[in-house]
């Protein structure tokens, strides 16, 4: 009899204890350039912890505006350091939670093999009608692309051929679908397992633009969620070289 009671109590205790380790849902805003890695990271993270990630992709500038207007994201994986820093200053992110999770590379890419040479000389000449970049106001990769064009002294010649995507994701889509022959995209977008998915590319020397350090930050809605902190911890331990990033 007593044994039965104990068993029932044990079962009840088990039921009550379960929520403590219950799987949680984490809402993550992710800069478009990190679209491929975050899919893999999410799969690993969900398997390891039982938590679930809700991923939103977009430009960093767009997320900044959305978060300021009350978007309920727990974590932001930005494409720059500036936006997380600003969010922290604005009291919208948890102080001290910021860290650089990746450093990206900018590439000039075409889906046509042999169109882009190893020095990017294709930009100086003709032979193309459209050059896609991300909106420099919203996307750090777009700002970096604009800086490169400026530094090469090609601002005036290239201006009429520029096609602006909303994010680096849209810029990539413009080139991948062939609507634009060339585009400045993130190396991570055209790399799978360390190899170019196709076409031709010029890895833009990092001296031509400010480094693309990308910071992650814990946002206010995620402050009390262990799952959100667990995701940031997980992110610190992931190797990103094969995705086209340095740490």
């Amino acid at each position, binding site marked *: 009899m007593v044994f039965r009671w104990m068993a029932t109590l044990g079962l009840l205790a088990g039921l009550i204890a379960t929520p403590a380790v219950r799987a949680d849902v984490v809402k993550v805003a992710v800069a478009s350039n990190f679209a491929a890695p975050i899919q893999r990271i999410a799969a690993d993270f969900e398997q390891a912890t039982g938590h679930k990630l809700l991923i939103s992709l977009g430009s960093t500038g767009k997320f900044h*505006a959305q978060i300021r207007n009350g978007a309920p994201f727990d974590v932001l994986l930005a494409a720059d350091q500036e936006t997380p820093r600003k969010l922290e200053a604005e009291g919208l992110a948890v102080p001290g939670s910021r860290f650089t999770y990746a450093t990206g590379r900018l590439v000039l890419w075409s889906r046509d093999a042999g169109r882009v040479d190893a020095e990017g000389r294709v930009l100086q000449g003709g032979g193309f009608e459209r050059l896609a970049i991300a909106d420099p106001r919203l996307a750090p990769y777009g700002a970096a692309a604009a800086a490169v064009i400026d530094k090469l002294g090609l601002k005036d010649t290239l201006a009429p051929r520029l096609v602006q995507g909303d994010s680096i994701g849209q810029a990539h889509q413009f080139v991948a679908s062939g609507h634009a022959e060339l585009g400045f995209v993130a190396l991570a977008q055209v790399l799978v397992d360390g190899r170019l998915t196709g076409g031709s590319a010029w890895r833009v020397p990092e001296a031509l633009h400010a480094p693309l350090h990308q910071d992650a930050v814990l946002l206010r809605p995620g402050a009390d969620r262990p799952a959100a902190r667990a995701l940031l911890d997980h992110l610190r331990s992931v190797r990103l070289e094969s995705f086209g990033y340095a740490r």
Partner: protein
Amino acid sequence: MTVDAADVEAIVLTLKLAALSSLILLLLATPLAWWLAQGRSRGRAAVSALVTLPLVLPPTVLGFYLLVLLGPDGPVGQLTRHMGWGLLSFSFTGLLIGSVLASLPFAVQPIQHAFESLGRRPMEVAATLRARPLDAFFSVALPQARAGLLTAVILSFAHTIGEFGMVLMVGGNIPGETRVVSTQIYGHVEALELGRAHTLAAGMVLLSFGVLLMLARMRRGRGGRVAP
């Protein structure tokens, strides 16, 4: 409240796009509406449904298929390249094609209603007076349907100005070529330049209100016969 050169450029481009779209639509929609209102062919229901499609489809659907069709792998894209015109996506022409398609029902429906309310009688009378069908159309049917034509032009103009989703997909945000007021507002909001967004948005509200007010006045003057 500030308006800079980029905003003015977007406004001018939007007005140009809307004016050209409604002009093309007037020429295209009038014969189509006549055929839908008077014709006896079997395909009328299907064509009517087809013309109305852009009214219910998300603009992204239109934008998506335009991207596919006008792209280098699409039939239209291959044709335009073959003709040496390059690709139409991210160009004013591409945007114009999209606008005409998106606003088609707004032009066809008022004209069709006007022709339908005319009935067959005036054309039959004209025929007994030995007017050839084309002559009767231009001197009897068209003047009678004047209010419908006007409504069509105004509505397609207003709708083109308000188009957003399709432009965002096929536009590419090029100043003076594809960057219209609606996408400019979107960009301002995304970049947190709310003052600039506000100026343009308020202008759109005023303009749209003015257009609808004008239509309502016209309708009252005609005893409710001018249906959009």
